[in-house]
């Protein structure tokens, strides 16, 4: 079924993508040849020394053949064989759910930090780039994938993925290099390659050229990809799915787990204020003006965790994996409006009063008797939500001192009370997002404190 939607245009276009890959890899082969790197074949194959460039040359040749196959086979797209195998498609669709997505993004994040030394080698970076490009090209043979990725709205997001990946890699490359230099007592990268140039003309000319190139690119983009205009807006008709601008998709994902005023007002404000507060709570004087990881482990990991798994990954989730009715869809899955997902959510108070032995003792949620005053009603609400309120208060007021005494003892001593409390609260707010997500997924927790009477839910 999937192969049917392949069209001549798609196959032809993919041929061009592979051709670009051929050119890129040919250049890389030349680079590799000039570097004269060799590696030994395993004993099975004779153990001879082979130049690395040979491998890249072979890979380039294969790509060339693939590109040729696309150009020649474009006339008969129904019988085209170079598509994403159904096995992989089904497996990825099967694995696709918010839990595995979040676990995978967090796991990748940890792996990236643990194996950064391996990651920053040039040929590994090049391999990863190739792998992602080939994966994208293969996936483009799938109809549903094309529908999502090919939307004019989503093109910049695809570009952003590669840009974020590249700059993260670049950071780690420079940081690892500098960390090595610091260990060996050599001067830093920034000190050694400190070539000062003049603002005029060197910098200004560069900026001018960048300006012209970017403008031209935007104009071409605007001509090539039409803006997706829709019917006139109506207050009673909401598009399905209804997506925020791509840069706010992280916020929209937060809104799935939190009350509007929390996810829409409080958390964004805390993010902004927290980012502004970083220079004031940062007591580490190292790493100023040069790339480093080892000297700023806490700062880098904390920021990157907030940025990569909690923001960029949420943008990816919202863009590519959320479909109609805000259900979760795999990247090769048909966007079925009637996809059924059991999402029965339960408040903590209901767990306590309804789904526990307390139910038989007290008969469900404590509710104010009819005709009770506002004060009495508030008392019943506090009784009902007492556990949640205590838990939330403990989270924000008991945890920081505990952290100060145990895990972050060194931090507390160096930062002093006020700065540490600011840091701890910001960190706790940041942690509240994954905590709530995990609670929602694991025990269908809707709200820890649920007081809909006063529009207060946590």
């Amino acid at each position, binding site marked *: 079924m999937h192969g049917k939607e392949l069209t001549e245009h798609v196959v032809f276009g993919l041929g061009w993508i592979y051709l670009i890959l051929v050119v890129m890899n040919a250049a890389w082969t030349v680079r590799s040849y000039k570097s004269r790197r060799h590696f030994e074949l395993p004993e099975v194959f004779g153990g001879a020394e082979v130049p690395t460039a040979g491998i890249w040359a072979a890979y380039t040749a294969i790509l060339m053949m693939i590109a040729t196959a696309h150009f020649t086979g474009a006339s008969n797209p129904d019988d085209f064989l170079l598509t994403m195998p159904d096995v992989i498609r089904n497996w990825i669709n099967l694995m696709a759910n918010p839990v595995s997505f979040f676990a995978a993004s967090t796991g990748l994040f940890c792996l990236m930090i643990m194996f950064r030394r391996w990651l920053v080698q040039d040929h590994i970076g090049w391999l990863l780039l190739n792998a992602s490009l080939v994966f994208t090209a293969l996936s483009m043979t799938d109809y549903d994938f094309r529908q999502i990725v090919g939307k004019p709205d989503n093109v910049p997001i695809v570009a952003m993925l590669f840009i974020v990946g590249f700059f993260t890699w670049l950071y780690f490359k420079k940081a690892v290099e500098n960390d090595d230099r610091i260990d060996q007592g050599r001067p830093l990268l920034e000190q050694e390659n400190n070539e000062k140039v003049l603002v005029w003309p060197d910098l200004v000319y560069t900026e001018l050229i960048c300006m012209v190139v970017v403008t031209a690119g935007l104009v071409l983009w605007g001509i090539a990809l039409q803006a997706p205009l829709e019917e006139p807006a*109506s*207050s*009673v*008709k*909401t*598009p*399905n*799915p*209804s997506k925020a601008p791509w840069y706010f998709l992280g916020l*929209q994902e937060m*809104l*799935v*787990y*939190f*009350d*509007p005023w929390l996810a*829409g007002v409080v958390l964004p404000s805390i993010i902004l204020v927290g980012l502004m507060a970083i220079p004031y709570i940062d007591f580490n004087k190292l790493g100023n003006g040069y790339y480093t990881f080892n000297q700023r482990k806490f700062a880098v990991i904390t920021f990157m965790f907030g940025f990569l798994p909690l923001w960029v990954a949420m943008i990816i989730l919202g863009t590519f994996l959320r479909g*109609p*009715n*805000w*259900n979760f869809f795999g990247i090769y899955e048909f966007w079925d*409006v*009637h996809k*059924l997902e*059991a*999402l*029965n*959510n339960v408040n903590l108070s209901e767990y306590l009063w309804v789904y526990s032995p307390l139910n038989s003792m007290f008969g469900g949620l404590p509710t104010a008797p*009819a005709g009770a005053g506002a004060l009495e009603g508030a008392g019943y609400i506090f009784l009902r939500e007492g556990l949640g309120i205590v838990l939330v208060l403990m989270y924000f007021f008991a945890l920081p001192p505990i952290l100060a005494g145990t895990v972050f003892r060194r931090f507390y001593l160096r930062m002093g009370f006020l700065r540490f409390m600011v840091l701890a609260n910001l960190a706790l707010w940041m942690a509240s997002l994954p905590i709530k997500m995990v609670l929602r997924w694991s025990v269908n927790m*809707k*709200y820890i404190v*649920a007081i*809909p*009477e006063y*529009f207060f*839910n946590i």
Partner: protein
Amino acid sequence: MASTSTAWIPVRCVGFPLLRSRFLRTSWFRESRHSHFQPVAHQFKRCQNPRDQRSIRVRCFGKARTNDSFNSLLNRRFQRFQMAEKLSTSEILNQIRSSGAVGSGGASAAPSGDAAPSGDAAPSSDAAASDATGSVPTKSKVTSAAKAPGAPASVLDSIRAKGGGVAAKAPSPKSAGDAAPKGASSILDSIRSKGGSAAPASKPVAKKPVPSKPAVPAGDLPSAADMLKAARGVESGVSAVAGKTASPVKPPAVRIKKPASTVKTSDRRSVAVAVFFTPFAMAWWLFSAASSVFLLGCARFMMPNVLVEPPTKFKIGPASDYPPDTVSTKWKAARGVWVVNTDQYNGNRLIYALASVCTHLGCTPGWLEGEQKYKCPCHGSGFYITGINFEGPAPRPLERVGIRISEDGMLEVDKSKKFQEEMGQWEDPASYFQVG
């Protein structure tokens, strides 16, 4: 740097040379072919007003060595720049006139003597270099600065040199040694060294170098007493100089500054004048008043004359139009309500109208017949046919709107009334119509 950590910056003194050096840094000025013009106007000192013993600031405007018109133009610009610190009109006129007199009358316009052209500054800076530190780089910098007096370095250096020169033995290692006048710290140092230098000059009998008072240890805030002392030292020291050299010709811009610290009763009226009756204050008051009126006028738009909205009360036909266990979506597009006929809420067969607004963030959910639920496309909230929320982030059930059977037997929906389940309002008979 030790000196950069000093937090105390006497704004009144420092802000001014900062502006100046910024001004001088413009290439227009520095690279001018008329570099023989001497911008010595930076040399200001505190003097003592013989009348009220208060600190006054004497601004000594430079004179041009030559008489060419470009220089006088520059001179005037320079003065106008300095007048950023509120001079009265008469004072400004006075200055311009006096500078004109300088151009024609020769060397008489710098009555305080400190404002001498660079020929004066060079020897004193040399003296400073040799006296205070004697370090070679400082000296070379100073002399080079004397050659190009327009540069900020020279300005600062000459200030510094002057300070050092007056204080023969004043130990100001920070100011002289730290030659590069890059930031506020160096300027601060120069000021401070001047203060330090002035103290012994005022009391030559004591011959005490007063080493520690003005040159505060880095990072410490000087005590109020120290500050006062330093200031007084400057005043008295300079006044001696100024008194000696004051020429009877024409005093240039002399402005009396009242110390802000002592507010006397007689000043109260002037405070009122400052708050209400200066042109500046009046302009602000007028502006505030106009803005307030404008904002109030904007509030008027909250009550429009004509409201282009469908009426909140409308007939939806007889009850027989809504068969049991159905959700009618025919009023959703135009009026934003579902009309529901169900017995699932409390066992009674009811017809009621639900507002099609999600209680999470206000999107419009859709009714899914197959799943028998309302489902919101924005964040995935789901509601049963009754309107009770059960999935997604929506914190409370959908809201009912008013419904009644009207006099002609038709059902009439009233969207101006809301009934919230969690508030127990669904018990209200106005929120439903019981069938049979």
